């Protein structure tokens, strides 16, 4: 055994061969397709049902309707009360979650693989035949209104809300999925049922299944379960991507939280859609800028300056132009300095200080060599499948990911930065202590701060 050499770090060995489990696909008829992949690492199966409608499908006068309707998926079905449903799920070791994003709603059920047939029946039942009892609608609506009210004291959600409003105004991306209190107050049970029929039941579904099961058997079980709920009604096509957002009016939004010991900061602008040919180049760019701990923004604001516990950036990939965003929370006295540094990092990476060769290689390794651990679990694989289905990507998009990232050149990243980052269009939202922060915000060249009341939602 050779002694350890402490004069140099060991170089990593070559990456081992790794094959991504492939999805088999089948059309179940009636507008639903199933994708199934084998992933036998634990005796579990992940079933992710993609309904291609999310908060962007909220009617303009009813922000929050999609998420409220989705909440009711766990409030019982035509046959099972909420308690019976919860009991049935626990009995199969199942965990059911509903996630509403701007473009889609995903009902995810992970369960013990020996109960997969029962799980599939429950999942389709929940999505197609929710009970939508008037009393449940009323109660869940009130609970969500109370959550909105509680968020008035939560800097993170307040900042997120202000950021979306400033960036998108009345665009379908301009509100969080939770919606607003005045709109939710007007929601009637009939409106929920109509939304379910129109936006969820009538949309084309994709069931992505991955786990400890044979894909053909999964497809066969899915067929049986689907036959029990399939309706003969025609499915509409999935909604198209929303239009480009309107131009921004206010670049500096301030939400008062007097006496706050930290300022919650959001910075960003509308970015490209997921369909952008620059997708892989921008993933690399973001890894250099703010995608991981060693990225510039975190190294600067946290490690060099000690302003914050952490700072990060990402492109929020959507069907339409989702936001490029920087998130951080900094000590009150450092608010304007932190903002200035953050803006400078965005400006520098597209101008005087493009990613160095070494930075790019670190970013590339994070994405390519780190790829296997992003599909270690069945749920991770199912989530990846959902993204492919939602965005209509080629079937081999995921398997080709490392190769695509490897093929991006330094020039591609520079061009993508120039095309998709624009310091002059950045919008900032600050939730912080007015006497300590507000006046200083005028110095940033973003125009005068516009104050947004915390209870405006």
């Amino acid at each position, binding site marked *: *055994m*050779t002694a*350890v050499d*402490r004069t140099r*770090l*060991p*170089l*990593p*060995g070559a*990456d*081992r061969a*790794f094959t991504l489990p492939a999805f088999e696909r089948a059309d179940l008829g009636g507008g639903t397709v199933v994708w199934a992949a084998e992933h036998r*690492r*634990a*005796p579990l199966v992940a079933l992710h049902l993609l309904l291609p409608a999310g908060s962007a499908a909220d009617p303009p006068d009813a922000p929050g309707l999609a998420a409220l309707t989705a909440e009711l998926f766990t409030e019982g079905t035509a046959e099972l009360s*909420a*308690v019976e449903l*919860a009991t049935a799920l*626990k009995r199969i*070791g*199942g*965990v059911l979650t509903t996630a509403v994003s701007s473009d889609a709603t995903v009902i995810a059920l*992970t*369960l*013990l693989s020996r109960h997969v047939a029962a799980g599939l029946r429950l999942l389709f039942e929940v999505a197609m035949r929710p009970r939508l009892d008037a009393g449940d609608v009323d*109660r869940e609506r*009130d*609970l969500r209104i*109370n*959550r909105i009210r*509680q968020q008035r*004291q*939560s*800097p993170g959600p307040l900042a997120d809300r202000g950021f979306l409003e400033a960036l998108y105004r009345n665009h379908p991306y301009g509100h969080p999925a939770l919606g607003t209190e005045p709109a939710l107050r007007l929601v009637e049970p009939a409106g929920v049922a109509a939304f379910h029929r129109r936006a969820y039941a009538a949309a084309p579904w994709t069931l992505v299944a991955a786990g400890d099961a044979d894909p053909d058997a999964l497809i066969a079980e899915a067929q049986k379960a689907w036959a029990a709920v399939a309706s003969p009604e025609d499915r509409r096509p999935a909604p198209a991507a929303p239009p480009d957002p309107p131009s921004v009016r206010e670049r500096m939004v301030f939400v008062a939280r007097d006496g*706050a*010991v*930290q300022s919650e900061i959001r910075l960003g602008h509308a970015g490209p859609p997921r369909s952008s040919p620059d997708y892989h180049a921008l993933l690399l760019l973001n890894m250099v800028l703010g995608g*991981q*701990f*060693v990225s510039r923004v975190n190294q600067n604001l946290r*490690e060099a300056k*000690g*302003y*914050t*516990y952490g700072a990060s950036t990402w492109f929020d990939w959507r069907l339409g132009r989702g936001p490029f965003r920087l998130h951080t*929370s*900094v*000590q009150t006295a450092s608010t304007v300095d932190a903002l200035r540094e953050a803006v400078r990092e965005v400006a520098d990476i597209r101008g005087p200080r493009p990613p160095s060769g070494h930075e790019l*290689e*670190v970013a590339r*390794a*994070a994405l*390519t*060599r*780190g790829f*296997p*651990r992003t599909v*270690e679990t*069945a*749920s991770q694989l199912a989530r990846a499948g959902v993204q492919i289905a939602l965005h209509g990507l080629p079937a081999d998009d995921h398997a080709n990911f490392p190769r695509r990232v490897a093929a991006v050149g330094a020039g591609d990243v520079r061009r993508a930065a120039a095309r998709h980052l624009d310091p002059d269009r950045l919008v900032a939202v600050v939730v912080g202590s007015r006497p300590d922060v507000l006046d200083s915000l005028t110095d940033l060249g973003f125009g005068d701060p516009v104050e947004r009341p915390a209870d405006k939602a």
Partner: protein
Amino acid sequence: MEIAYEKRTLDNGLDVIVHEDHGCPIVAVNLWYHVGSKNEQPGRTGFAHLFEHLMFEGSAHLDRGYFHPLQEVGGTLNGSTSTDRTNYWEVVPAGALERALWMESDRMGYLLPALTQQKFETQREVVLNERRQNYENRPYGLVPMALMAALHPPGHPYHWVTIGDPDDLRAADLDDVKAFFATWYHPANASLAVAGDVRAADAFAEVRRHFEEIPGGPPPPPPAVPDEPDPDGERRLLLVDRVELPRLYLAWRTPPLFAAGDAELDLLAEVLCGGKASRLYQRLVRERRIATDVTAAQSSRELAGSFFIAATAAPGHDLAEIEAVIAAELAILQADGPADDEMERARTSADADFVYRTQTVGGFGGRSDQLNLYNVLAGDPGYGPVDRRRYAEADAAALRRTADRCLRQDGRIALSVVPAGSTAAALPGSVQVHPK
């Protein structure tokens, strides 16, 4: 789920545990030091966690940030500090195991030469920011401080929270770092798990090559635990906070991790608040609509457990209404125990959790972290099946008895958190506290 492993102990006292799984070409390295905020001294609280931050700032032979060399090979990493232990982990491509072990061993053996006043001060600022972000500037964020101080007497190792007191953090200096490192950060107080796509023999050889040169220190002293007198009646506390809705916390001192009653309390939390079919959710949120949420948990720790119930009042309702419903439900459980179907649900759910926990080899709560938990806190990395059996064998009668013994009204802390100007929403007779 049984996690197959081999364990060896190096001459310097380092426990090494290896678990092979060749399903994904990654390897997890997970290192526990058996030190947490319970080992701090009053006046120097928050130190174990601050120290954890310094472990990422470089060591003698790699005097730069710890993240870069691992992220540049596609790895991911983190660390955390609790009352009981500090853990560090990396998940790397299988070919980078040697690098991860080199780095972990370098900071175990050679941290101090690279430590500077400037690194120390920057990380102290980062920690103060973490505290502001996660506690001070968050609704209900100071509740842990109030509850830990009330549950455990001054001088008890759980009297303070892991994030510490800001004044204590400001008072700490580099000499504290050096003493802390010498006492706690050596092989005989650590447990290293390697899990994933590696042959056990290779893993043991690499670990020995990197770690056996580090001298083991004396076994550190166990924390002094003062006798805790039995509570002499309920204590009602009031915390005025920047919140929208009042919230009630009920808290009890309970048996420690793995002790009799611990698993039963976990199952009781499930019966009371595990999802929409649970008793308290049914009563408070669905039927009477006087609360917007309700949660319960047994916090299982090494020296003592604690059981919490927390419920937020719906607008127009006060915490006394909520307390009355919870008290009535607890009394029913204490008299009759759970019904058969509740018991089955809770047990199936707990059992499924053991399966869910085996999905990843690394990270917080993954297989390598569990092997270390069982090794450090139960003395046996193979304790998993025993742990799981506790849940399978608990029955309704045991839950009834445990609820009766551990969740008595005269032994609890009742903390009302209310917005300024709404003290009337608190439980009557509550005494205001001012945690910071």
